[in-house]
Every structure is written in structure tokens, then in C-alpha cells.
């Protein structure tokens, strides 16, 4: 399966040039860009690990691309996403978030059903990979 979280997951994987242009768009809007990574892609895993602090005063997308190259080298078997934060009043939240790197194999999720009363099911979603400890989940 292909994890389709993030803004551009239905497109072919973005090249570094394409990522650069998206990051520069964020910076030009005054948003702080950062990288986050995880090997637990559960859709409600909100807090991916922070690779760095958001770049608040950086005018050039190339700085993030360099960080991304370094992160990929160290975290080839992880998901890495770009997150852009907007601090303007009334937002103060991410404005763009997209996956910039993903593991070669994505086994997907197990849906477990527990039958309860009146035909109702309790659903639990588990990434197949999370059966292993962090750091040993993807190849």
C-alpha cells in the first residue's frame, strides 16, 4: 500500500527540485519550515519526531533541502515529512504538510474488529510494521 497522508501523496514522489519549490512557496508566505520523521505511520500519530526546530528566519529553501538530504541518509527506512507553520493570528497551525521520503516497502495496516453488543464493532488500526520496536520496523 501507499500511505496517502500529506498534501501530495497521490502524485509521483516529488523530486528535490519540486520539494524546493514547495518549501520556497512556504517561506515566501512567511511560514517556518521543518522536517519530522517516524516509523509509526498510524493516522492518529500526531507527533512525529522533530528532525530540527522549525526554521523561523531562513530565507532560502535550499537550507531545508540540505537537511532533508542528511535526514534521508540517516533515516532511509523512515517516513520524513515537510511541515510549514504559520504563526499569523487565527491560524497558528501548520499550513502545508507533505511526505518527502518514504520507506521502500510499505506493508500497510491491520484492521482488527472486536464484536460488541448490538452488531457493533470496535475497530483498531495497527501498522503491520509496529509489531517491531522503533528503528526496526521498515526495510
Amino acid at each position, binding site marked *: 500500500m501507499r500511505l496517502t497522508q500529506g498534501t*501530495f501523496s497521490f502524485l509521483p514522489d516529488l523530486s528535490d527540485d519540486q520539494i524546493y519549490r*514547495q518549501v520556497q512557496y512556504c517561506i515566501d508566505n512567511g511560514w517556518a519550515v521543518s522536517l519530522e520523521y517516524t516509523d509509526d505511520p498510524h493516522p492518529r500519530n500526531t507527533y512525529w519526531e522533530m528532525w530540527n526546530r522549525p526554521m523561523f528566519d531562513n530565507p532560502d529553501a535550499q537550507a531545508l533541502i540540505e537537511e532533508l538530504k542528511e535526514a534521508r541518509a540517516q533515516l532511509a527506512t523512515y517516513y520524513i515529512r515537510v511541515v510549514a507553520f504559520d504563526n499569523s493570528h487565527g491560524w497558528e497551525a501548520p499550513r502545508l504538510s507533505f511526505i518527502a521520503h518514504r520507506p521502500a516497502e510499505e506493508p500497510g*495496516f491491520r*484492521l482488527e474488529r472486536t464484536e460488541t453488543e448490538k*452488531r457493533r464493532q470496535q475497530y483498531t*488500526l495497527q501498522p503491520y510494521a509496529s509489531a517491531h520496536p522503533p528503528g526496526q520496523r521498515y526495510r
Partner: protein
Amino acid sequence: MEGSSNQPLSTKERYKEGVLNYRDMGFWRPDYDPADTDILAVFRITPQDGVDPIEAAAAVAGESSTATWTVVWTDRLTAYDKYRGKAYHVEQVPGTQDQWFAYIAYDLDLFEPGSITNVTASIIGNVFGFKPLKGLRLEDMRFPVAYVKTFNGPATGIVVERERLDKFGRPLLGATVKPKLGLSGRNYGRVVYEALKGGLDFTKDDENINSQPFMHWRDRFLYCMEAVNKAEAATGEVKGTYLNVTAPDIEQMYERAEFAKELGSPIVMVDLVVGYTGIQSLANWCRRNNMILHLHRAGHSTYTRQKTHGVSFRVIVKWMRLIGVDHIHAGTVVGKLEGDPMTTAGYYDVCREEHNPRNLEKGLFFDQDWASLNRTFPVASGGIHAGQMHQLLHYLGEDTILQFGGGTIGHPMGIEAGATANRVALEAMILARNEGRDTWNEGPEILREAAKWCTPLQKALDTWGDVTFDYASTDSPDYVTTPTTA
């Protein structure tokens, strides 16, 4: 009743038994400077032949506040000047012979705090049947911050909904399950599963899906949540379906909403036809239970569409943001339903902005400060398809929900492919826009480029690429010529 002037009557003359002109009873106040705490309204009035527009405006002010048809002495037991609606400005509607805009100010104490129901009982109450008028339309209202702060507003709002769903930087995508009537629960859930797995964020019950012989509401909720959970497992994304809890009475609405919550749905929906009190009760319930509330505007066109009588939809949007809906259907511009571009832009501004400056070209007659009330997601639904993606993004922007019902389910390769076509078209367009491309002019080319590697998108463009709904709008701004839609 002749001999009206702008000079106020003496108290003795004013309270003599009998019938006076409304303008002589204190409802026409051209010298009045509205207070920051007043609620303001602008009406389009079409007086009967021979009725003076100023007298008509004063009558509207009177009938929507304290007046009755004759002088009553009991007025004098009250601080009557405070409670009178005050018509303070009348001007002819541009390009018309028989219509006037009447601006009226109402003291804040005329209204119960936090009650749109009470506001409407006055402002669109008896006055709309008043005989001296051929027609009356409530065009816009200004709510002072003091009154805005008596409402909770949307429980979730655009920003928190995006955080909860983990979806940023693009419009959300939905589809209304079709056919809207007749599917069994089991078949209905099939449509939900296919559409969500294919790439939509949401599916939606239609407005008239409640609990009919062909599908009981519990059955629908159970099958829909099976579909939502399966689609989440297939994609790793948060998904949802708007479960319509509209019911014959409020107790049953609560029962259905509770069941939706227990099943793990992040969202419920309700129809405008349940009324202001019903919607606000459900909005409060959603606030208590961390649920998103989707509003379908079923019924609104019976009173919003014609320009000479009724209520402008922009007023309905203001009421609904105060009441606290998280989503509201607000038009598509390019789809099958009524929607002039500038007028629709006005509705979207009311949903999404912190402050609306007066902008007559968009039909916004007043400055409106929203005092940090959450933003409402405008929903575009009705006759839209992937081939219009650049136009939809241009007119409606990024913070909107695009609902492709027929444009998903009618896809020649199936529902999942229809959903994928829409998602790919959207992501390709956002990517191009962010890269600085001119999506308005290059849109069709951007879609064709993506269709080279996405067969479902190619099929969608082949099937619907030429479909447009190009009819003149019945509700367009009065202050500029109407731009065309395509």
C-alpha cells in the same frame, strides 16, 4: 396622515389616540448615528404603488421592533426611544425604479443574548407580510462584537478540523452518496468505502437521507463506519462520513448523534430545515462531544434566491457562523446551482475571514468583526467535476470542501477511480499553484499533464471535460456588472 416631515412630533401629538405615519412615530431618524453596539440591517424594499419609500422604511423599522398599526399609550411605560427600530438611511437600488435599500439600527437590548431564533422572530417576523410592501428582502446584517461574544460559534472551525484530520494546504474532498434515495445500508456503505479508499476525505449523506423504509438510520451508521475504518486501514489517512442526524424531533436527533459518536465518527450533519434552535442545540452538543457539525442548506433557495423578497444567503451564513456550524454549503460558482462569482465570494468571506470590510461588489453592506469566532468551512457541492479544478481553486480558494457526488460515483471506471481522479487533479493543481504557475490559464494543460500518468483522470476529462452550467444568476450584486463564470 398627510404632512409628514423630518421634524419630530411633540410627545403630546405623538401619543394622541389614532393612527399616525410610521415616520412620525419615531421610526425614521435620518439624523441617527448608529451606535457600535447596535445591530444593523439593510432591507431591499419594494413599496406598493404610491407608498413613499421613507414611510415604507419607517414601517419596516416599526414592524420589526416595537410598533403596531395604531398608537398605544402603554408605550409610555417604557423607555420607548431606546426600543424603537430606527431607519436612518434610504437609497434607491442602482438600476431600479421601484426598489430602495433601507438601513435600520436596532438597540442591542431588543434581542436575547445568543439567540438567532429571537433575532429572526423580530427581523424576519411579521414584517415580511406587511401589506404596504410588494416585496421585502433582508440583504445583510451587522452584528456588534458585544452580541457576537454571546455565541459560541463553530466548535471546531477550519484550523482545528485540519489539525484533527491532519490535512493541510489543499481543499478537502468529499462526495455525496448517490442515488440519494433507495440504497440499502449494505449497498450504501459500499459507495462510502470505494470513494474513501480512492482518495476522498469525506463522504456525505444527502439532505433527505434520514430513516426511510429502504434504510434505517442505525443500519446506515453501522455500515458507513465499517467503510470508514476499512478505508483508513487501506490508506493510512483519517477519513470520515457525514452521518445525517436530522430527525422528526430533537430528542431523536440527540439519539442519532450519540450513536454516531459511540461508533467513532468524527462528524455528524444536520439539515437547515430543522430550524435555528435545532441547529444550535446540535452545535452545543458537538462542542461538548468534540464532534464536527456539517450543515446542509436544504430549503434555503425558497427564500434566498429571488432578489425582491426573502433573505439573502449571506445573512443565513452569518447566522450559521454565530450558531456554530463547522461546515456550510455556500455555492460552487461553476456547478449546477445558483451562484454568481462576486456574491458567492461574499458568502465565502463571511465564513472564513476574521473581519469582513464593507464591500458592495461582494454584497457585503457592513463591516463585520468576528471577534475570534472560529471560521466555518464553506462547502462547494452540486454539478462539479475534476475538469473544473483550476476554476474551483481560483474562485473558492484553499479552505473549502469540494464535494463531487456524480463526479465521483458516475466515473466510467468506477467509484474508486472517480475519487482518485479528483484527488490527483486537486494535488496536481495545488502543486502547480504553489510553484507559481498561472493555474487559471494553464489549468487545462496541468490537468492533461497529470492525466498522462493517471488514467482515471483522463477518463474523467473525457467524460465531463465539456460540461458547464452557464445560466444567468438571479441573485447578483447591485453595484457592478456581473463577471462571467468561465
